[in-house]
């Protein structure tokens, strides 16, 4: 009997929920007008897009005019960082963390090659940035700081408010990649001291290929592309209307459900963590408490991560791993190295990320399978036998 799929990779992406799909469908066929057109089918779609902007803004405590729809979380990050750098117009200093997603990290590397200086703040063993380090890293030519709200691999939540206040005090722009947080934990931009915030619909049961950038009033960036005047020229190109409608419906639903979802996922997460920690030589990566509700990241010593991933896949369980072999690169993830893990421990890391559809049965199924998988792979491993 083939097992049903147990999906524990919500950090990678989530399924589009029914209500979201339903909201999107009319915008493929009946409501196909171009929102920039002046005729009535165009105006009708324009109204829907602006309504979506309103919903998205309300879900975040922002003003509709501060929301710019983009093609992804990646694009939102690029517009904020590159756009602010271009706007700055001269070489300067950027501060970020050493555990950012590639969609920030690679942009910073690129900007370095273009003559900007970048400081990559260290993190502690739990993956947390120390606000004192940020304060110390600031120089007279620092013009933007970018620190993610929560890490996608180990789930650690950053003290964004505190970091943001430091930036504000020094009159420096502050960006946060909140792709993993929006829809999981409350974000209130009325009081969060950030100038830019990125989000992506497919992480909260919305469609893939659509995101948004929050950019606070009076903040300016130089657009990366030239084209029409869509999204106030910050992101030209005919809008992905079904995607935008989907994003707005998904964020509205996700944010309204945060309290219950957070409670449920935290309980499932902690059940999974304590089950894993009963196995010998298992390490929890990330922070014990200050982590995303659905994120579990552990390393099974003496075992490489992809081999666990593959074993679980054969049992119908989908997870991800930060090991070198899994990423197809030659290095384990930079995040795991930044929290000080040994190469061999980093190489054994597995991420289980829970979401809307996750249940206690799923967790118990995985907890039932893992000991056997770990035992089998350790029996094959030369390092385990040395004990």
């Amino acid at each position, binding site marked *: 009997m083939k097992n049903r799929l147990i999906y524990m990779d919500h950090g990678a992406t989530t399924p589009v929920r029914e209500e979201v799909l339903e909201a999107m469908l009319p915008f493929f066929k009946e409501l196909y007008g171009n929102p920039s057109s002046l005729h009535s089918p165009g105006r009708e779609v324009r109204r829907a897009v602006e309504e979506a902007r309103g919903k998205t803004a309300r879900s975040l405590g922002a003003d509709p005019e501060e929301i710019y729809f983009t093609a992804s979380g990646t694009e939102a990050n690029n517009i904020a960082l590159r756009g602010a750098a271009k706007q700055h117009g001269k070489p300067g200093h950027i501060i970020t963390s050493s555990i950012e997603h590639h969609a920030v990290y690679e942009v910073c590397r690129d900007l370095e090659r273009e003559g900007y200086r970048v400081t990559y703040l260290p993190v502690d063993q739990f993956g947390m940035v120390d606000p004192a380090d940020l304060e110390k890293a600031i120089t007279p030519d620092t013009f933007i700081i970018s620190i993610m709200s929560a890490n996608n691999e180990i789930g650690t939540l950053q003290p964004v408010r505190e970091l943001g206040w430091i930036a504000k005090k020094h009159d420096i722009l502050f960006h946060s990649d909140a792709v993993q947080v929006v829809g999981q934990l409350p974000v209130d931009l009325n009081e969060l001291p950030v100038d830019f915030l990125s989000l992506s619909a497919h992480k909260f049961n919305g469609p893939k290929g659509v995101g948004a950038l929050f950019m606070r009033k009076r903040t300016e960036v130089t657009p990366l592309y030239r084209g029409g005047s869509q999204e106030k020229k910050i992101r030209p190109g005919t809008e992905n209307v079904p995607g935008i409608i989907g994003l707005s419906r998904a964020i509205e639903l996700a944010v309204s459900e945060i309290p219950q979802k957070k409670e449920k996922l935290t309980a499932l997460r902690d059940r999974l963590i304590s089950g894993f920690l009963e196995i010998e030589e298992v390490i929890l990566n990330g922070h014990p408490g200050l982590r995303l509700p659905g994120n579990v990241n552990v390393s099974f010593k*003496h*075992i*490489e*991560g*992809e*081999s666990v991933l*593959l074993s679980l*896949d*054969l049992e119908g369980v989908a997870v991800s791993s930060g*090991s*070198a*072999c*899994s990423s*197809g*690169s*030659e290095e*384990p993830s930079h995040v795991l190295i930044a929290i000080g893990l040994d*190469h*061999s421990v980093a*190489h054994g890391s597995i991420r289980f990320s829970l979401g809307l559809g996750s249940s206690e049965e799923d967790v118990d199924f995985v907890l039932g399978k893992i000991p056997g998988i770990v035992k089998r792979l350790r*029996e*094959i*491993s*030369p*390092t385990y*036998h040395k004990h």
Partner: protein
Amino acid sequence: MYNEIVVDHFSNPRNVGEIADADGVGETTSFKCGDMMKLYIKVKDGRIEDVRFQTYGCGAAIASSSMLTEMVRGKTLDEAMKITNENVAEELGGLPPVKMHCSNLAADALHEAIKDYRARHSAK
């Protein structure tokens, strides 16, 4: 991600373990990804009579270790020395290109084990 042969060798690896009184032992670590393999051989009349392995690594590394042990049993040392990492990957029906370095352990560990055997025996 992998073909059926690879999945089979990963799920049911052949010849796992140690040989306490091995005639030769070879160990290799991929400095690219950190995968690690240890191979033990028993030699009789110039042929590989028994072979066991232990591997720390991904699916490709475990499967290629297992496949290699199947390929060398009964071979003469000279024949075994000629087995290349590519041969192992071919026997597995191919591996994803990014995984080639993970499978490069197996033949290397075998050659180390044979060298170890030869060193022990020429020293006598």
